[in-house]
């Protein structure tokens, strides 16, 4: 049943009942982060993203890969409360995770305002030293206040040691009192915060008074590393503890600002480490201020792509997603559901005993209309008439393929007939009859192995065609399919479930009841909504975002036209190959940004040397996008696109008309009459069935 309901009412009706309402880690409190955290199967996240490792890490990936959840899980504010004394939790973990988000810096303040770029770079570098040190001191002050473990002497020694490399900075930064020589972590924290706020004021007001008046007390990194080093030396209990700065949303920093962080990574001492969370595209440089040296992967840092880790162990990823689901459902009071029970809560297409083709579902789609008016038969009939103007031939051919109780037989026979027609450029009644008989034999359980393979390959496309020809959207059902669709982004998986549950609720369905699984209709509707969300959500901002959006629409439409043509060249086309020869820089940029933002996935195995050594690269439309264009989730076939076609899809300056012309040219050999000329069998039209 199609349900028409205002999106606002959908929210109101479903928000309190949906266990998947929250799809982002930022929406969780610290306690909820702990409650909903699911460690990665086969060794856990620490096997590839250990926070206590002295080697810096870039944790990169698409939006919703779980970086923020993981980094927050590693943070001091979550870990500390697991033991009575915070210091004991830190000593157990062997690190202190100092977490912050770069968006909190409001880094855009450090530019423009008619102040020179060099002045901004100098100001930003020292500001960041102060900012990071302040975060560290917030953590140490919290630990000190809670555990009362460091006496006044130790704290004074710590502050003095931290500020020792900064000449004459003690008076400015330590927050010391005129009444006492004693210093404390808290006074240092307060002194530094006050100093930083004075910097803030000057930075903010530069636009108004035209000057940037900030006091630079040290070179980049000096204040930060002297403070971590002093904590190691002077604060009991921290000698074997690493200070790991968990820097999230790195993409919010511009190139020069990232160079500062890279410089810290290069020049850090053994007491400090960094874990940088960023979108894939957000790491703009590996340059440093250290004599222009670049940090090298494997040397100064490790590069961890969460999706790649998930992709490398598909079964583990599935298990992970199932655990995420059961954890959410248990939290929402649905009890502890095992994987098998969980999967049964999602309805399948209707089946009857012995129905090896899936005709029961197909007949349900076709409804009660007279069998002869089925769209695929009408298309066939019209195609023959258009090609030959021979009504008798058209009628005969319909009689040959027509199977009122088995529409899938009809579709399979037609596919084979179309394939033959396309290759021989003519239509042959006898050959058609042979094909129809082979299909009958297959349906009766004794078909040829070759035809079994054909059916297995094409069945999903055939069923999808049947839905679309009858003005229905093809079904997207089953937990395994939703997992595949997520493209190894857990948030996309959870968002899909969120929309499915929402669709089920507005259809009045009882949630997660074994008596009433979530309907096919609700599953498909939820998947479609998730798909549309993904396209909106993944595309970048700016001009390139619009270009990417257009390119993805064009690519999806091309694949759609191929899939729903009479004779698709390959099964399940959701990928293309290209040698990228003759492609301009702007078009390459669009492809590159589509890839970096997860709209396209590059398939590494797609590289093959052909045509005198030219390299073919293969790109797949992200599986989350596939339902929007009624395409299959799984990748099987691919289209080879030439440079004109690549330009037509990815070059925004190509007009819609030019694009449409190119698509028509590409689709013509796949649609009736496949470019063939009228046959010698042609006879004048004598009327006919339709």
């Amino acid at each position, binding site marked *: 049943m199609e349900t028409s309901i205002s999106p606002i009412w959908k929210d109101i009706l479903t928000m309190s009942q949906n266990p998947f309402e929250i799809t982002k880690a930022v929406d969780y409190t610290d306690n909820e982060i702990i409650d909903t955290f699911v460690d990665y199967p086969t060794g856990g996240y620490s096997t590839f993203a250990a926070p206590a490792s002295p080697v810096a890490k870039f944790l990169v990936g698409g939006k919703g890969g779980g970086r923020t959840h993981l980094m927050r899980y590693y943070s001091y504010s979550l870990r500390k409360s697991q033991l009575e004394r915070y210091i004991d939790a830190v000593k157990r973990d062997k690190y202190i995770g100092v977490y912050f988000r770069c968006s*909190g810096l409001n880094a855009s303040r450090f530019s423009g305002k008619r102040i020179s770029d060099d002045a901004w770079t100098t100001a930003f570098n020292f500001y960041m030293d102060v900012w990071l040190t302040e975060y560290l001191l917030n953590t140490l002050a919290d630990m000190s206040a809670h555990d009362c473990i460091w006496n006044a002497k130790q704290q004074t020694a710590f502050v003095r040691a931290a500020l020792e490399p900064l000449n004459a900075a003690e008076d400015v930064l330590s927050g010391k009192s005129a009444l006492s020589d004693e210093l404390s972590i808290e006074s240092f924290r307060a002194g530094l915060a006050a100093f930083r706020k004075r910097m803030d004021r000057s930075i903010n007001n530069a636009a108004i008074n035209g000057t940037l008046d900030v006091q630079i007390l040290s070179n980049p990194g000096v204040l930060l590393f002297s403070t971590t080093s002093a904590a190691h030396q002077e604060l009991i209990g921290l000698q074997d503890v690493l200070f790991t700065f968990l820097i999230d949303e790195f993409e919010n920093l511009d190139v020069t600002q990232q160079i500062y962080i890279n410089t810290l990574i290069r020049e850090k001492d053994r007491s400090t480490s960094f874990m940088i969370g960023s979108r894939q595209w957000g790491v703009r440089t590996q340059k440093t201020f250290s004599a222009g040296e670049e940090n090298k992967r494997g040397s100064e840092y490790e590069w961890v792509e969460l999706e790649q880790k998930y992709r490398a162990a598909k079964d583990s990823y599935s298990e992970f997603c199932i655990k995420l689901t059961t954890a959410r459902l248990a939290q929402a009071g649905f009890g502890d559901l095992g994987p098998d029970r969980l999967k049964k809560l999602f309805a399948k297409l209707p089946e009857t005993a012995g129905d090896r083709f899936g005709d029961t579902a197909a007949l349900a789609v076709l409804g009660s209309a007279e069998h002869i008016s089925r769209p695929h038969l009408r298309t066939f009939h019209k195609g023959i008439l258009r090609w030959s103007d021979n009504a008798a031939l058209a009628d005969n051919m319909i009689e040959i393929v027509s199977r009122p109780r088995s529409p899938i037989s009809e579709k399979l026979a037609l596919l084979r007939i179309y394939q033959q027609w396309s290759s021989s450029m003519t239509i042959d009644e006898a050959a058609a009859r042979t094909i129809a008989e082979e299909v009958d034999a297959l349906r009766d359980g004794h078909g040829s192995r070759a035809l079994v393979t054909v059916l297995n390959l094409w069945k999903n496309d055939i069923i999808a065609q049947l839905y679309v020809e009858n003005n229905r959207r093809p079904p997207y059902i089953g937990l395994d399919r939703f997992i595949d669709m997520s493209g190894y982004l857990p948030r996309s998986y959870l968002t899909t479930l969120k929309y499915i549950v929402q669709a089920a609720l507005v259809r009045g369905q009882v949630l997660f009841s074994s008596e009433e699984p979530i309907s096919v209709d609700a599953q498909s509707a939820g998947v479609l909504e998730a798909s549309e969300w993904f396209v909106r959500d993944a595309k970048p*901002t700016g*001009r390139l975002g619009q270009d990417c959006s257009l390119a993805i629409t064009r690519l999806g439409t091309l694949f759609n036209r191929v899939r729903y043509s009479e004779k698709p060249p390959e099964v399940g086309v959701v990928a293309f190959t290209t040698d990228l020869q003759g492609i301009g820089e702007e078009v390459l940029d669009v492809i590159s940004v589509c890839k970096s933002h997860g709209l396209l996935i590059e398939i590494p195995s797609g590289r093959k040397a052909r045509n005198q050594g030219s390299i073919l690269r293969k790109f797949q439309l992200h599986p989350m996008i596939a339902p929007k264009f009624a395409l299959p989730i799984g990748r099987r076939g691919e289209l080879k696109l030439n440079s004109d076609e690549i330009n037509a899809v990815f070059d925004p300056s190509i007009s819609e008309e030019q694009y449409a012309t190119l698509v028509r040219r590409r689709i013509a050999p796949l649609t009736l009459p496949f470019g063939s000329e009228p046959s010698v069998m042609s006879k004048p039209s004598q009327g006919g069935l339709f």
Partner: protein
Amino acid sequence: MTVDYSLFRRRVCAPDDLAGLKFDVLISAYNESERVNKLWTSVQADVRIWINHEEYGFDDNELPSAHHIHSGLVGEGEIQFWSDLFSSSVLSEVSRDVRLAIDITGLMRPHVLALPLALALHRFSNACALYSDPSGYSGGSGAVFSKGPVLRVSAVNGFEGIHDTSTENRDVLILGAGYDDELITAVAESKRAAEQIVLVGLPSLQPHMYQESLLRLHRASESINNYSRRDHIYAPASDPFTTAGVISEHITHLRSINSDLNVYLSPVGPKTQVLGISWYYLCEAVNTSTSVIFPYAESYERETSKGIGRTRIFDLEIDLFRIDDYL
């Protein structure tokens, strides 16, 4: 709330009564909306200045030629923009007690935001902000405003706060929402970790606009944290001073629970709401942990509205602000 915003003066003027309004200087941003051009031709003024925002994409030969035109560039700081205008030969010699009116209807939002501050920095004591209601928006709930992509989300010069780094703090983003879901999405995404609160114009400028704005808001709902679980806050779309009061009250409440709060305000709704956020900021939030952020789009439609309703006149008592905080 430390300021009684109900005391600020506002009045309305019917379209037929616009000719009775008289100012020394009228400033307005040129676009093709009837409500902008009707006011321009009706109101009496000795000096008239058109602002040409590059975002509207007018060629020189498309701009009206009879009056002084001050052009602004995409990405240029708004404070600098206004400073250049107020220091220009047309206005530099004008008395700071002049009867100055600025029609904010066609101005870019960050320029509306920066206007009271720029007036204060240039020692104007008073000014009138004019805003004409539309009868409706072209395309209803599907109306397009920003047509170019969002280039960046950043703090507006003069409205940058001094934020806290406490381990316990949480950022709050108050999104002044209107019809432009692309802008709402961009802002929400830029402060992903913040507790995001949506400020909706209610009563809206016209009765149907409330529902239409909620429909547009829904398109951005997946980007807004905890969208379905959190109540919106409401302030009249037509009244900047009440808007300022509502924001003040809400932030005071939030800070009573958590004093370390970093607050971000983002005015992407009606221009009157933008003015309200500016007013709140200048009255209460300068040099606090509050910033105003804005999603800068490359271009805007030249004509988005139909007809002209009432014109609202807001007296800006500029001499209230203590600009020493900025110097």
